[in-house]
């Protein structure tokens, strides 16, 4: 072996390790590794075969060369062919005349039209399991594969195994986290629905009692409870749908002060009923902006509703809603209350789905949905709070839609 070849191998191994430690996606990393292998080993084709642990089948994960497209969906049974044998025994194999080797699996050649003459195949192994194998076929100069080729391919396989093992571990962590999140969501939802059902149950019981005693006051009281819980259920379903769906804001040109004022007006009556003063300070210079007015109405409604709940029975409590200019390209909507405030330890969890500090009144969806809508607009939402003094939620939104936040 000449000095030039040595340098080429060293450079290739360096490139492989650089590709593996890069921040690319696993599929891109492996593709790069196989590209380099084919080039440096001067072979007609190469492929990476992964073992499907559930079925025991071998899957052509990445195939290089002419047969690539034909093999990408091809599966082999465990133990089939030279590759299957290598995976089973975890031993590398050099077969320089495949026609003389009984392990050779002809179906691949039949399917691809490729004529395999020689194979070098090494296993992909991690400390705990066998992951698959890499194989290279037919040297371009027609020569045989030798021990140096085997050593080189084993070095690449060692690096690729690390990348694969890491990716698999990462996938399994993500999968477990996702399962835990689903479980938490279902439990949160069940808890919320049980509270609504309790309201309906209570309302119906009071109606029954009113009918029995011929007391219309009871009937009216029970009926109001049933209706309230019915609309609560509708809100819950709407929030669930908004939260679960990836959607782009439906942008339209709108007078943001008008949008916010409509919500303030809607909530005035409720504020009066619970003894909370509601103030509204619009910034007249705000003008026309681009946003999904339905979505933003929902956010402001959620925040005002939370602000009023936070005021509870606190005497002289107020909720102040205002708009402000923020630099040249953004504006703010502020919802400030003088209510109970949020404990510092609860603040990082506020936007988590199904987190609520409101007892049975909270669905744990309102702020999660609000956060999602604001993020979909390319904006942000900040919160400052002091226990005993109150809370301010600040929505910051761009005046015009950002290109990557979609449109109608």
């Amino acid at each position, binding site marked *: 072996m000449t000095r030039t070849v040595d340098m080429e191998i060293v450079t290739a191994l360096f490139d492989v390790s650089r590709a593996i430690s890069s921040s690319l996606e696993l599929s891109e990393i492996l593709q790069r590794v196989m590209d380099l292998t084919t080039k440096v080993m001067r072979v007609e084709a190469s492929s990476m075969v992964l073992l499907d642990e559930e079925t025991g089948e071998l899957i052509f994960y990445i195939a290089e060369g002419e047969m690539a497209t034909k093999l990408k969906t091809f599966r082999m049974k465990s133990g089939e062919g030279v590759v299957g044998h290598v995976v089973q025994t975890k031993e590398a194999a050099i077969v320089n005349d495949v026609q003389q080797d009984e392990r050779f699996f002809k179906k691949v050649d039949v399917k691809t039209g490729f004529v395999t003459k020689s194979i070098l195949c090494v296993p992909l192994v991690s400390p705990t399991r066998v992951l698959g194998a890499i194989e290279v076929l037919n040297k371009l100069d027609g020569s045989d594969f030798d021990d140096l080729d085997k050593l080189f391919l084993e070095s690449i396989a060692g690096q690729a195994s690390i990348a694969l093992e890491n990716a698999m571990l990462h996938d399994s962590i993500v999968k477990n986290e996702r399962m835990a999140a689903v479980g938490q969501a279902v*439990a949160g939802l069940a808890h919320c629905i049980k509270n609504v059902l*309790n309201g309906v149950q209570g309302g119906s019981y009071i109606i029954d009692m009113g009918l029995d005693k011929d007391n219309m006051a009871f009937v009216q009281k029970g009926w109001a409870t049933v209706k309230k819980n019915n609309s609560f259920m509708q809100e819950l379903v709407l929030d669930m749908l908004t939260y679960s769906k990836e959607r782009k804001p439906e942008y339209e040109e709108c007078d943001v002060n008008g949008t916010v004022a409509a919500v303030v007006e809607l909530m005035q009556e409720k504020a009066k009923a619970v003894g909370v003063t509601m103030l509204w300070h619009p910034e007249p210079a705000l003008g026309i902006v681009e946003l999904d007015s339905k979505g933003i109405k929902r956010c402001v409604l959620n925040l005002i509703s939370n602000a009023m709940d936070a005021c509870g029975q606190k005497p002289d409590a107020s909720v102040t809603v205002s708009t402000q200019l923020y630099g040249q390209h953004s504006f703010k909507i502020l919802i400030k209350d003088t209510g109970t405030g949020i404990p510092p330890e609860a603040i990082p969890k506020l936007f988590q789905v199904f987190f609520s500090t409101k007892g049975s009144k909270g669905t744990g969806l309102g702020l999660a949905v609000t956060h999602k809508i604001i993020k979909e607009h390319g904006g942000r939402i900040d919160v400052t709070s002091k226990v005993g003094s109150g809370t301010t939620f600040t929505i910051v939104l761009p005046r015009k839609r950002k290109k990557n936040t979609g449109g109608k």
Partner: protein
Amino acid sequence: MDKKMTILFVDDEQDNIDFGEAMLMGIGDFDVQSANNGFTGLEMATQLKPSLIILDVQMPVMNGFQMFAELKKNPSTAHIPVIMLTGISSTMGMQYNAKDMGITLGHEPNAYIDKPVDPDIFQNTVKKILGL
């Protein structure tokens, strides 16, 4: 006639208190008092020494588990029977759920009833605890 028995109902949702009052009316004539969080509930329990406390779990300011633990710590309220109402499935066990919220109960409530509350179960449980 004997003095009316006092029952303290602690729940942050007025609808639930109304429901509870209605169910209690079905079994007797009680003096029903209510509080909308554990903190006020605890103050009222110390003051009123009710014959029974009905306690919701999920409440702002001080939740039902915290209030229950405080009741048991205080010798003047430790003896008062408690029924806990919960939206969290009771099949998981109260101790487990309290632990999940970082609270050590030390004791079990006299009964716990899952929401949505079944009026028959509620009424029979109250009657049994009060010896009616």
